[in-house]
């Protein structure tokens, strides 16, 4: 199944041209409205832009960053072509803002990593690609930008491609890497093919974005996971079921299951895969067996639900299920566990130390958690894993051992980004302090 909605992220060091590239995509696909254009022209002139449009100004939103001239937070952008709707997470490139990259990458199906053709692959480029891979983005586009400043030279493009390929081995989980030579400033190979780089035979960036696979494409290849989010009961279920039957002693015929005072539906969003009416299922963590009696929606019943649909399941047996439990097929159950290893991106100023206690949120479940030990740390320069640190600081990435007070129902992140991810919340500040990817349970 192809979703005609693609979420992607853009990453690169400061000044590599991310904002310009996004501005270019919006501008060349005619998404820039007249009033925005007027603002843009005025702002470009104020910037002293020699009459050229500064497309970066289309996206650089908050005042602080307009004043500083840098991007400080993930910004979401929207555009559409005839073929697809796009959501862009525009991620800032500063070293200290690595957490924003992880945020943008967490929901993306594709990452565009920008490289300045003059500088080639720099430490930041490798880091951005590494974080994209860590967060499970299956496809990378390495956009080699500012080709106009290197005479549109094929040789330079090939050099950078070769440079990047040497570090690609560190990008486990990435299925596909595409290299495109572009000029965001002049528009080459972004939306329109470059005449100045006729040696390049691959696709333009937009062509690729319009045709690439998205994560929900193959629901039959991945086990179904349905975290129960909310239990739907009709209004009359508790109080007036008896009352309505006693009125005049007569009893209305009920045409719809949804008018049934005993209605009990389990609402949620299918995290992955497909479920059908009649499927045998198991409810975790307890492991009760039953089958799917109906798949309800406000628009009527369905025979089949596919991720990422939000539906309400009714089960053949009267079980007492609540939020946080998970429905799946019996022969493809995830692990039910209170201990696992995970990679953590640390998002907070205050450090994390072994023994730290947090609230862990995973699917629709929350549980107190303790970080038992820090196993290793990713060195931000070499991207190699080095010996265990004594604590984790803002933007650190490390493998840790986690223990929870209640069982979680987990898959490895590599096989399921929804049931393999969690966040850590600090109980004192209520801040979101860690992002976790489960590696082994």
């Amino acid at each position: 199944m192809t979703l005609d909605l693609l979420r992607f992220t853009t990453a690169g060091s400061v000044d590599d041209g991310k904002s310009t590239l996004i501005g270019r995509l919006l501008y060349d696909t005619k998404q820039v409205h007249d009033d925005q254009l007027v603002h843009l022209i005025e702002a470009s002139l104020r910037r002293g832009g020699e009459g050229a449009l500064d497309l970066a100004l289309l996206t650089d939103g908050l005042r602080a960053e307009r004043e500083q001239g840098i991007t400080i937070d993930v910004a979401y952008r929207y555009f559409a072509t005839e073929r697809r709707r796009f959501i862009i997470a525009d991620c800032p490139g500063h070293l200290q803002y690595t957490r924003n990259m992880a945020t943008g990458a967490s929901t993306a199906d594709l990452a565009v990593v920008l490289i300045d053709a003059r500088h080639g692959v720099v430490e930041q480029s490798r880091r951005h690609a590494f974080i994209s891979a860590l967060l499970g983005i299956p496809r990378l586009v390495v956009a080699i930008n500012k080709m106009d400043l290197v005479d549109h030279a094929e040789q330079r493009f090939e050099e950078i491609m070769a440079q990047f390929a040497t570090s690609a081995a560190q990008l486990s989980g990435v299925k596909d890497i595409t290299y495109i030579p572009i000029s965001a400033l002049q528009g080459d190979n972004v939306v329109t093919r470059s005449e100045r780089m006729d040696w390049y035979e691959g696709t333009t960036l937009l062509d690729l974005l319009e045709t690439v696979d998205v994560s929900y494409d193959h629901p039959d290849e991945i086990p179904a996971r349905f975290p129960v989010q909310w239990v739907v009961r009709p209004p009359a279920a508790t109080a007036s079921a008896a009352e309505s039957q006693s009125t005049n002693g007569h009893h209305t015929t009920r045409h719809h299951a949804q008018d049934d005072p005993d209605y009990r539906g389990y609402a949620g969003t299918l995290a992955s895969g497909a479920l059908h009416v009649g499927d045998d299922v198991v409810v975790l963590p307890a492991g009760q067996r039953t089958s799917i009696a109906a798949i309800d929606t406000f628009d009527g019943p369905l025979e089949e639900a596919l991720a990422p649909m939000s539906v309400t399941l009714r089960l053949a047996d009267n079980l007492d299920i609540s939020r946080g439990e998970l429905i799946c097929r019996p022969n493809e159950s995830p692990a039910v566990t209170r201990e696992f290893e995970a990679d953590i991106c640390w998002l907070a100023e205050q450090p994390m130390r072994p023994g730290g206690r947090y609230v862990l949120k995973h699917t629709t479940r929350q549980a107190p958690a303790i970080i038992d030990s820090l196993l290793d740390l990713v060195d931000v320069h070499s991207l190699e894993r080095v010996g265990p640190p004594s604590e984790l600081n803002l933007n650190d990435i490390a493998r840790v051992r986690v223990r929870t007070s209640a069982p979680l129902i987990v898959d490895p992140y590599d096989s399921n980004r929804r049931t393999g991810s969690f966040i850590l919340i600090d109980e004192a500040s209520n801040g979101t302090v860690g992002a976790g990817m489960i590696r082994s349970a």
Partner: protein
Amino acid sequence: MSAVSTPTRPVLSHLRALESEAIYVMREVAAEFERPGLLFSAGKDSLVLLRLAEKAFRPGRFPFPLMHVDTGHNFPEVIALRDQRAAELGERLIVASVQDSIDRGRVVEETGPRASRNRLQTTTLLDAIAEHNFDAVLGGARRDEERARAKERVFSFRDDFGQWDPKNQRPELWNLYNGRIRKGEHVRVFPLSNWTELDVWEYIEQERLDVPSIYYAHEREVFERDGMLYAWRDGAELIDGETVFTESVRYRTVGDMTCTGGVRSHAATLQEVVAEIAATRLTERGETRADDRVSEAAMEDRKKVGYF
């Protein structure tokens, strides 16, 4: 090339994907907060929110009341639809009135031809949130409306003064929303964060939702100011040289009459409106909201003090 897809299944349209995400967000709010409320103005975005709430919670009741901040200068057609929808759904509607805030001395009415109650709404809203002890307030804001909103979270934390701190937002990863707050704080939740104006209209068309008649072209007495067409109403003050004339107009947002401008249009049906939006060359806020034109950073300033 391997990256090119061969669809093996029917497509789930982007509207269905956005709908599903919004339903998920609403159910998270229901499950994680004790006293949520849903802001309902009968504008197009909030009408979409109500339909999404039906999809999220029926055949159950909504796990929250609806609340409208009434400036007293709202379009009568909009107020009528507000009451009609609440009654049809059988859900509770709370009306928080700016006039009450004025009468109780919480705010002072602006005067002069450019007087607007738009700014005053913030106090009324925050007072109502406190009075009803709301810990989460669902709203229909979208990130595509304005640049300051592009970085807004789906769960947007507000301190005990109702303020938004754009520099200190909680990171938001995957679909794991953090709704933990202390007493007195609250969270604004935006299920339509990832929708565009066109998505909203296409959804209204798909779901056959009733929207206030002012969204369709109609003849109205208006006056022109700063390039926008404002509805003439009793008590409005004209500035030198402005005259009242009749024009075929349509509204793209249904804010307060004092600061919501209409656009010249002959799009009288939903299909015509969708076609017009698809082809439009102006953004929604740039075209119709005087309050955003004051300065480029206007929206950011108002959000910081608790405006929606």
